[in-house]
């Protein structure tokens, strides 16, 4: 599983890593060019501030560079750097006063059992893709970090439960329950903002 993390060009990545370690700045630049779009998109799920996104992605690549010798070639380069990126994002969010991992579960959720059963419509076909993304990001930004993180990993990055569990250091059962709560909360917030997307609305 973990389809999007498996890269057909991992052999090329390995050579680029070797060349970088041998001192080739150009090879490292190629590696950055290869993954910068995906990392910018990943970090975009956590903040919409372009300067902060750039800062976090840059820090991710610099961390990767400093630890390049520890890169194990049995995992893909993207899997490896993705992990660094997620940790960097979560660190930054923590420093900014949010606590993504420490907040175990959100007590607020207890107030909305109806949200679990709430049903939402698919986005209107007339909506532009950008408009859908804008709404989704606005709703995501209202969620506690632990919920946002599993939703990003599962829905945008399409990671397998096992990969999410490994990345966050939690059990698969916790991944499942957290995803369940995250989706319920997402539906609740979406319908608060846009009641027109409720089923039967």
């Amino acid at each position: 599983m973990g389809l999007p993390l498996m890269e057909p060009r991992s052999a090329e990545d390995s050579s680029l890593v070797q060349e970088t370690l041998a001192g080739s700045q150009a090879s490292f630049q190629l590696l950055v060019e290869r993954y910068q779009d995906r990392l910018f998109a990943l970090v975009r799920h956590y903040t919409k501030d372009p300067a902060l996104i750039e800062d976090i992605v840059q820090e991710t690549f610099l961390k990767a560079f400093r630890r390049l010798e520890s890169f194990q070639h049995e995992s893909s380069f993207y899997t490896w750097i993705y992990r660094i990126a997620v940790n960097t994002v979560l660190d930054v969010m923590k420093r900014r006063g949010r606590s993504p991992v420490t907040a175990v579960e959100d007590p607020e959720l207890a107030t909305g059992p109806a949200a679990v059963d709430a049903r939402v419509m698919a986005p209107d076909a007339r909506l532009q893709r950008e408009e859908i993304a804008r709404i989704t990001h606005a709703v995501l930004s209202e969620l506690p970090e632990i919920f946002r993180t599993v939703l990003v990993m599962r829905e945008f990055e399409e990671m397998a439960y096992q990969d999410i569990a490994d990345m966050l250091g939690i059990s698969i059962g916790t991944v499942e329950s957290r995803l369940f709560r995250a989706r319920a909360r997402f539906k609740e917030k979406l319908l608060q903002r846009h009641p027109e997307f409720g089923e039967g609305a």
Partner: protein
Amino acid sequence: MTMGHIDCSDARPLVPSYLDGELSEAQAGPLRRHLLDCQACRAGAQSGKNLKRWFAATEPVAVPRDFAARVARLAFEGGTVAAPVLSDFELVPAAPPPRPIRGADEAKILKFVLRLTVAAALVALLASVAIQSLRRPNTAELRADDRPTMSLDQAVERLKQINEQAATTPVSAPTDRKP
């Protein structure tokens, strides 16, 4: 749960994992059959699919044109040089670097001034110690009796001398004894 047949209470918790592609075929098969038969569970599964559609699109993020070149350069210039941390809302101009000491002359002057200060401090310290010891009262000054002491014998001797002086000195005062 009988083999190959599940009811709603078995089916509903499986739906999210099913939609995420996390079920084995042994679990997915019976669920699929249940969904064909059960309109309520099918509606629930459809809602889950609808929700996923909200995550199909991402907002495009513009990567700065020179980003990769800049990051590679930073990495090779030392790797620890991170970009200035940017605030949420504005680009903060980088703080000016601390003014360097211009040239070797300024460094020499600074050194000289420092040495001079140390020397002056030492002189002042020595002077204060010296003044202190000069002004220190000696033991004689600190005596409680301010007269020179003499032994009892000396005192008696001195008293005799005084008496003799008195005896030999002619007394000017009139006396009632006539020789």
